């Protein structure tokens, strides 16, 4: 049901770590489906497994077991270089600490993901300009990250995520380093991006952030504790 619109489909995903002699079940049998144009927040206290969730969803890490279909393709068992390509094509990351390249100006930062797609300089430039215009930084393209405010940096990071036209935007505590006014601005930008048809997944521990999202999934001890999506219940029945 609804599989043709599902961007993400996790089936019985686990992630286990060895910590000394102890086995840590960071993710313990996760089943979730994320549909196109979903606007979803993962919430939970620290240690609940939401960071691991983000790493798995972002293809930064591979699950210990289970199946992860991204746009209908199982990416759970891919090699690192294949995962790099998936990240480049399908995922736009937005980090808490912005993670911009310190020596590159805003424009070059936004162009960087396109370098790995072997897109020529002119095209890269015009695509990056478009993305920077979209986040309202057209006038600041030649500024270095340390010449920009926190909110502006996060906008550059959002532009960098948007420029590749990814299937999902994956934000990890996107407002964690921002003041409340800027937080509001960024979240309004997120709302707009959702309205434009983007699929957004936000990992956060802040209630106000989660309130912007259409769907909130709470995690606890590596399991999904609650999911306010009615569809989710229907999905579980189907299995």
């Amino acid at each position, binding site marked *: 049901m609804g599989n043709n619109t599902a961007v993400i489909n996790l089936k019985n995903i686990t992630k286990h770590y060895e910590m000394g002699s102890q086995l840590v079940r960071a993710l313990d049998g996760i089943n979730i489906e994320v549909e196109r144009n979903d606007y979803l927040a993962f919430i939970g206290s620290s240690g609940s497994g939401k960071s691991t969730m983000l790493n798995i969803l972002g293809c930064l890490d591979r699950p210990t077991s289970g199946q992860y279909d991204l746009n209908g393709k199982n990416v759970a068992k891919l090699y690192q270089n294949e995962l790099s390509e998936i990240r480049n094509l399908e995922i736009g990351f937005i*980090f808490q600490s912005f*993670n911009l390249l310190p020596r590159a100006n805003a424009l070059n930062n936004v162009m960087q993901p396109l370098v*790995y797609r*072997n*897109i020529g300089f002119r095209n890269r430039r015009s695509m990056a300009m478009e993305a920077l215009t979209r986040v309202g930084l057209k006038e600041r393209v030649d500024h270095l990250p340390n010449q920009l405010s926190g909110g502006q940096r996060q906008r550059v990071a959002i532009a960098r995520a948007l420029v590749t036209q990814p299937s999902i935007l994956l934000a990890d505590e996107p407002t964690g380093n921002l003041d409340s006014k800027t937080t509001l601005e960024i979240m309004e930008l997120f709302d707009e991006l959702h309205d434009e048809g983007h699929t957004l997944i936000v990992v956060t521990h802040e209630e106000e952030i989660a309130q912007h999202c259409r769907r909130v999934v709470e995690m606890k001890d590596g399991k999904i504790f609650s999911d306010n999506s009615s569809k989710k219940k229907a999905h579980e029945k189907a299995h």
Partner: protein
Amino acid sequence: MFFSLIESSRSALAAIFANRLRSFLTTLGIIIGVASVIAVVSVTGGMSAFIGDSFASLGADSLTIRSYTPFEDLMKGIRSRLTPGDLELIEKRGEGIASITPVLEANRSSQIKYGPQTAYSLIMGTTYAYQDVAQSYTQIGRFLAQSDNLTRRRVAVIGEDVKENLNLPDNPINEYVELSGEWFKIVGLLEPMGDIMGQSRDNIVLIPYSTMVSILGNQSRIDIGIQLSLTPAANLENVVSQLTTVLRSAHDLRSDEDDDFRIQTAEQLMEQFDQILGTLTMVIGGIVSISLLVGGIGIMNIMLVSVTERTREIGICKAIGAKSNHILMQFLIEATLLSLLGGLIGLLSGYGLGMLISSSIPDFPPASVPLWAALLALGFSGFVGILFGILPAAKAARLDPIDALRYE
């Protein structure tokens, strides 16, 4: 691939210039290594061209025959000799010889006196034919004549340096100098010949061969040198082998005995010199490659530090889609560019140093860097960069994206 190559070079240059001082200090080993090799090559390059010119003035078609005593024979008190008899034999039976002259040198510099002045010079007994063989002509007066030899006349032809050292007048003809207690009349002044390997060829006194023999006394024990020049049609190798045959039979050498003489051509002298120069260059090259090696290790060190410092950056790049080979290329290109830039700076400063050295030595030809040396130096520094960049680059490429992103 091509795009990412340009892109990698661009950001590598940005990284290098972001830390100018550190980049410079890192490449200092390469700079010094390349600069020293280029300085040496540019100086020796100029020198060997210069020496080549001087040897050509010796006459490429002239031969020198000297006696040669192997070391074991020397220990037994046996000395090989070339005698006036050998000279006569060669004059009689040699083919393709244009002119031939005996040369009898005093074993060491001899004292010459002119009025209150005393000087030391090489005294050489020879004949009129010497001027053709050695391409040495007089600028004032005449050369030794045949009659000088026949009558053992006490006349001398002197070199430019002798005139200077003895404070002789500008026209020294008909002045008398004292040599081994005898008075010699100066009949000619030689054209200046310049020097070879720092030894002046103008500090020379030529006297008739027969006069020299009588000064040295015991005629039966003398060991002469023979210089000869060839006719244009003569083949050098044929003449050498014919002369060898003549002298071997004259000296009653069995077929298993080595020659007790040496036939040298100007070309051989030049080859010998080139060989010495080549060996010198190789020794210096060896020392320099050690310094390049050390320079390379320096680059590797700093690149390893740089990888650690930029761990987070590497994580970011991987998160937004960089594959291992993108990161590998990035750091490899950075190390190579760093090393190449060092090589370039070394090349320029080495050339400058070479020019400085050669201009500080009077009469020395200007330094010149052959293209092959420049390319080799750059190629080698590039190679060092690649070689010592591999380890840091591989370390960067292997980083796990999550760990790298988390790195503080």
